[in-house]
Every structure is written in structure tokens, then in C-alpha cells.
């Protein structure tokens, strides 16, 4: 496998062939915030938090979907980028009903962590406060649309890792909702295998376990499942 060399924030870094800028940055401990990205799942480039500046291109590129190229010069943390990221987090916080004090994901929430790390202590935008429903029809878990950031991690983990494709999206724009099957109650879904992967990858309190105050998130299990499958660790 050939290796490429590129400059990231003024430092020369090496990258495996075909690696994304995000992977390279993580390998070299250069922080780039992400939300829709999840290790082991396909990339969608939807949250726009990982946008970086690539010299020679007037468009910002999503680090999760841009491949490292020999000689590339990348900036990951300019003042402009930091300002854009703060605005995106603010937009997310204003979009639905993110009230940390009464949320099961308080202290385990990735959106909360992003806001804290970026110094977003208040939101300048008009809170939209939509009246969204909750689906508590599943015996073990609850879906609360009010806390969903539409990162589609649940959709992807269900489709790509579990192979059930219970989740998908309906509606468009601000009315987009994650739905199970053809918008039936989750508890009545015929495709759901009740594996719980969606709950574990959810970055916020949109998917959580009944009866718990904080749902245990395990960011590594998907990569483990994927690796085990690829290396045929299970022989059935």
C-alpha cells in the first residue's frame, strides 16, 4: 500500500492510500468536530461540521468524504471554520427541543459536547420549538423526534450493519423525520430485530432506553462488528 504525504495545519503528515482527511487528522490527533460521522458506517457528509479548507479549492470540503491526495495543503481550524461550526451547532440547538436539563442524554450527548467544546453558551437564533411526537411503542426503547439531529446514524447502522433497514427518512426540509418501516409505530415494526444498535449510535437523546436516565453509548462496537465480519471471526 502506497503512502501519501500532505500538510495539515502547517505540519507534514502521512496518510495511507485512500484515507479520508478525517481519518488522517484523527490518526495525527488533530481534532475535527463531527456529528453524522460514525466509525464503521458509510459517510454522508450531512452535518457539515468537519468542513476543512483545501488550498487551491474555493469550496470547503467535508473531511469525512475527501480523500487525502499527495501534496495537499489542508487547514482544519481557521477562525472562519470555527465560526461556521459554531453557527451550525447553534442552528441545530435552535431547530428542535434540545433542553439538556431534562434530557436523558445529559452529559453523554455529542451535541452538548460539541457546544461546550466550541464555547456555544447561548443560541442567537429563534428557537423553533416544533411540537414533535415521541414513539414509545417499542418494549425497550423510545424514539423522541424532539431531540433528533437527523444525522442518520440509526438509518445507516440498521441498514449497513444489522441489515434490517427498519429506519429511513420521510418528509423534507425541516419536516424530515426518522421513521420505522412505512411510518408505523416502532413496536409494530416487522423488520426491526430489536438489536438496539440504533440506540447505541444515536449522538443525542433521540433514541434511548426505557427506565434509564442515561443510555450507555459504546462508540466502538460497530467497528468491532464490522472487523469481525470482514475477518470471518464467526463461522456460522
Amino acid at each position, binding site marked *: 500500500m502506497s503512502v501519501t504525504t500532505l500538510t495539515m495545519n502547517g505540519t507534514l503528515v502521512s496518510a495511507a492510500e485512500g484515507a479520508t482527511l478525517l481519518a488522517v487528522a484523527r490518526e495525527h490527533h488533530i481534532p475535527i468536530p463531527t456529528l453524522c460521522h460514525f466509525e464503521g458506517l458509510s459517510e*454522508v*457528509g450531512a*452535518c*457539515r461540521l468537519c468542513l476543512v479548507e483545501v488550498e487551491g479549492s474555493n469550496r470547503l470540503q467535508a473531511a469525512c*468524504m475527501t480523500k487525502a491526495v499527495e501534496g495537499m495543503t489542508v487547514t482544519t481550524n481557521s477562525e472562519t471554520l470555527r465560526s461556521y461550526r459554531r*453557527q451550525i451547532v447553534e*442552528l441545530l440547538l435552535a431547530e428542535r427541543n434540545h433542553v439538556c436539563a431534562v434530557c436523558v442524554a445529559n452529559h453523554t450527548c455529542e451535541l452538548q459536547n460539541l457546544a461546550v467544546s466550541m464555547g456555544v453558551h447561548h443560541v442567537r437564533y429563534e428557537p423553533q420549538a416544533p411540537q414533535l411526537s415521541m414513539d414509545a411503542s417499542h418494549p425497550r426503547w423510545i424514539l423522541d423526534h424532539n431531540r433528533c*439531529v437527523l444525522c442518520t446514524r440509526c438509518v445507516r447502522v440498521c441498514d449497513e450493519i444489522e441489515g434490517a433497514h427498519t429506519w429511513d427518512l420521510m418528509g*423534507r*426540509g425541516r419536516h424530515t423525520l426518522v421513521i420505522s418501516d412505512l411510518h408505523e409505530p416502532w413496536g409494530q415494526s416487522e423488520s426491526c430485530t430489536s438489536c438496539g444498535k440504533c440506540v447505541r449510535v444515536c449522538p443525542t437523546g433521540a433514541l434511548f432506553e426505557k427506565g434509564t436516565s442515561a443510555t450507555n453509548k459504546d462508540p466502538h462496537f460497530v467497528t468491532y462488528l464490522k472487523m469481525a465480519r470482514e475477518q470471518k471471526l464467526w463461522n456460522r
Partner: protein
Amino acid sequence: MIADDLAAVRERERTAISLSTARIAVCSAAGCISTGGAAVKDALGAAVIAHNLSGSVRVLGTGCLGLCHAGPLMRVTRGDAEPVLFTKTTPAFAERVIAGLPSGVLPLEQRCDLQQPFFTRQHRIVTSDAGIVDSERIEDYLAAGGYTALERTLAELHPEDVVREVSLSGLRGRGGAGYPTGLKWSTVAKAAGHGTFIVCNADEGDPGAFMDRSVLEGDPHRVLEGMAIAAYAVGAEQGYIYVRGEYPLAITRLKTAIRQAERMQLLGHRILDSQFNFRIDLRIGAGAFVCGEETALIASIEGKRGMPRPRPPFPAEAGLWGRPTLINNVETYANIAPIILHGGAHYATLGTERSKGTKVFALAGRIVNTGLVEVPMGMPLGEIIFDIGGGIPDERQFKAAQTGGPSGGCIPAAHLDLPVDYEALAGIGSIMGSGGLIVMDETSCMVDVARYFMEFCRDESCGKCVPCRAGTVQMHGLLTKMTHGTATDRDLALLEQLAELTTRTSLCGLGQTAANPVRSTLRHFHDEYLAHIHDHVCPAGVCAMNGEDPR
């Protein structure tokens, strides 16, 4: 069918035309049909039979004749005489026209002066068949020289020659972005061999725009021919036309045209008895504006939810089902046959240095001649609006022209001398877009216009990326506050900041251009924003300004 058979069909049709004493074309595009054009055509047909003129008078339904506000339009051609155009016709009027034909006396009223600038200043390439070719008869298209470009391509040209001609013509994508067509074709042609696809983007969705619609409804074969030539050039055997479901007439006419072309071996296997196979299927859009964005369009054709994905990879490299895919707009394909017939160099003599050929515009809004016009690139905006468009009705003042729909911008009176080409429009913060041209007079409020387009983008955002999904909601909220007279300087600053954010960080063209109407009105009509914010006054008197909180 081979070339000789085709020539025989053309000859037979031309003989029939030359033997007829009169050809009466009724505009059969959606505009004139909505004002009763179909009834006029039926009445003509009945009158022809009643007066026993079936042998000598031909009645045809043709593509858009341009003056949509004066429909249904009727164009009468008798022998070599100058054609006569009648406006606002009715079935009773049709009866009078037929009755007058034998004696050669046509009604004097309802005539339209064909020497007025609306007609003389236009240069018709894409719309040249309007008034001549029946939209539902392939024989008419053949008689007018249709499919000769395809014939010539297959018989005389190598695929590389076709790409070279198109490059030479300087044609640029008519969907709005203006990417050089020849360059796109050569990229796709070079992409690895088997299983290349051709797509025609007919998901025209800008408010007030109907250029592609009228081409599809009026001259569907021209698009099929352009696509077939493109397929030959890039080595594709399968094409799709992605047409929006809101265009039922275009869909019907396309279906008819594809069937006719297949029957004559102009589409399908071994076209004109050559080695070239090409099939076209229709895909009907379900009403999402974002599906006009090429990656969303690809997802939609594949049967997935119509959401864009980041580029690169570009469709030319990895498009439909990961295969190299050539995507062009309807009007772009409609330009191909003339380019092949008359040569790319000839086409390139029209237009400006970097924008060649003609552009079809849909004139809408506060303008006398509402309708469809085709003008050479580089014509000053003022000439299109005042000479061809007839200016502003009711003796009002011109205020702004909006080009490019929700992705475009508003152009103030100070720039009326601006030549219409891709670079010039981009230079003042608007875009060429697909060709919608909405004219506004002093009764339009620019803040309200910006709010209207933002509402459109907010509702049409697919919801995938955050800046577009949530940013358009916030910008719309801020603009609504301004129209209610409750906005502050802080809101204006927030609006400007959000406009930059969505432009710079959105995933696809929809979000990246959603703030263009805001940005261009902020640039050219800043005072109007300030009047709303500081003086709580809407200078145009449009906005409610009721001081109520919009929420």
C-alpha cells in the same frame, strides 16, 4: 429503416406540404391550451371537413409561438405568402378563418404584427420549429429536416468528431451553471467504457420558468435527437429523461415521440441500420425541486430518496449505479442537432466571447409580452425587457429583474445595459440560471421578494445538511420579521451571517445558492432593508408592517 427510407418519408411529407394551399398552426403548448387552444384546433379540424378542404388545408398543433399572454395563438401560412398570426382566437374565429380561406380573405382583426421587435429581435435555434412542426407527428419533424443531424453523425462522424464539434460551438450547460458541454462530453467519453448512461434533466422547477417545458411539449423529437447524438459521442446505449410529474402534457408527448422514433428505427437497436444502439426511458419526478440537482436526480432515478451527495466524484465519473453518466439539460440537448448540421464554428459566431449561441427566456411578472423568447447571448437585459418584452405595463417604472429563480438574484435598473451572458450576470450577484426572467415594477418590495424565494428554498430543502435545512428556516424567520416591521439591526447582521454560512457550507447547489436572492437584494437594495428596520416602513407598500411578532 435505412437512410433511403427516411428520405422517402421526408419527400412524401414535403410533397404533401407543397400541395396544400394553407397550413394552420395552433399553439399546442400548455400556455395556449390553458386558454382554450385545444378547442380552437378541434374547431379548425371540424371546419376543414365541413368546407370540404381536407385535401388542401393542414391543421397542426405546434410548439410555443412565444406570445403566451395573447393565446391561443394561430399561425396561418398560405403558399409563399407571409404568414399571418392571430391572437386570442376562439372556436368561432377558427370557423371564420377556414370559411375565408377559399376566397383568400382572412379576418383583419386579432392580427398580430409579425414585424414588431418581439419577433424580429429574436434569434430562433432551439425554438425554430414552433409554428412549422406538429408536436405529435414525427413526419413533420422529418420534413423540417429533423434527424438529418443524427443521420449525418452515424454516417460520417466518429464519436470524437462529435465531441469536437460541440466543443468548438462553445455551447455551455443551459441548466444554469454553464459548464462547457463539450468538456463534459469528452470527460464522459474518456471514462471507462461499458455501461455509460445519458440523462436528460427535465426537472425544471424554478418558479415562473417554462423553457424546457415548452421545448418538450412543442418539439420532443429535437431533444431525442440531441440525446441520441450525445449517446453516440460518449458511447452510451441507455438514456433517461427525468421529467417532472407536473408536466403531464410533456410526458404524453415524449411517450408518443419515443414510440414514433422507435418505430422508425431512430431509437432502439441498430439505429438507421448502423451498429449503434440507444434506448430512452422516461423517469417521472414526484415533485421535489432538489431532484433537479444532478446527484439527487441520480438517486431518484435509482429509486432512492432524492437527496444529493457531495461531489466529487462527479457523475461524469461515477453517476447512475456508479457508472459514468452524462447529464445535460433539455435546452442543451435541443441545441445539439443544429450544431452538428451547421457546424460548431457557425454556432460560435453567435453570442459573446465566453457565452455562445442563444438562450431561451421565460418572461414573466410585470411585463407586457409575457411569454417565451429566444435571444442571442450578449443581448443587453434592457433590450430583452423593453424592446422584446414590450416594457412595463400600466406606465409603471421598472424596478428589478430576477433571473435564475430561487438560486438567482435581482438586477436593478442601473444594470439594464448589462449583456446577458454567464459571466456578466454572475459578476453582479445573479446567475443565468435556466432562463426564468421575472420583471418587477415599483409595486414589488425587494425584502418581500427575498422572503418569497427563501420560503421556496426552505420548503424545498431536502433536509440532509444542517446549513440548508435549518439555515433557510432561520433566514426566512428573519425576513418575515422585517416584513412585519419588528426586525432590528441585530437581525440584519444575523441574516448576513447566515447567508454567508449557507452559501459556503451547504452540501449541494440548492443550499449554496439559496441565499442568492437575499445577498443580491442586500447588495442592490440595501436602503429598502434599512427602511423596513429603522423606519418601519415598506417603501413599496407591500409588507404588512403591523408590528406583530411573526411567531
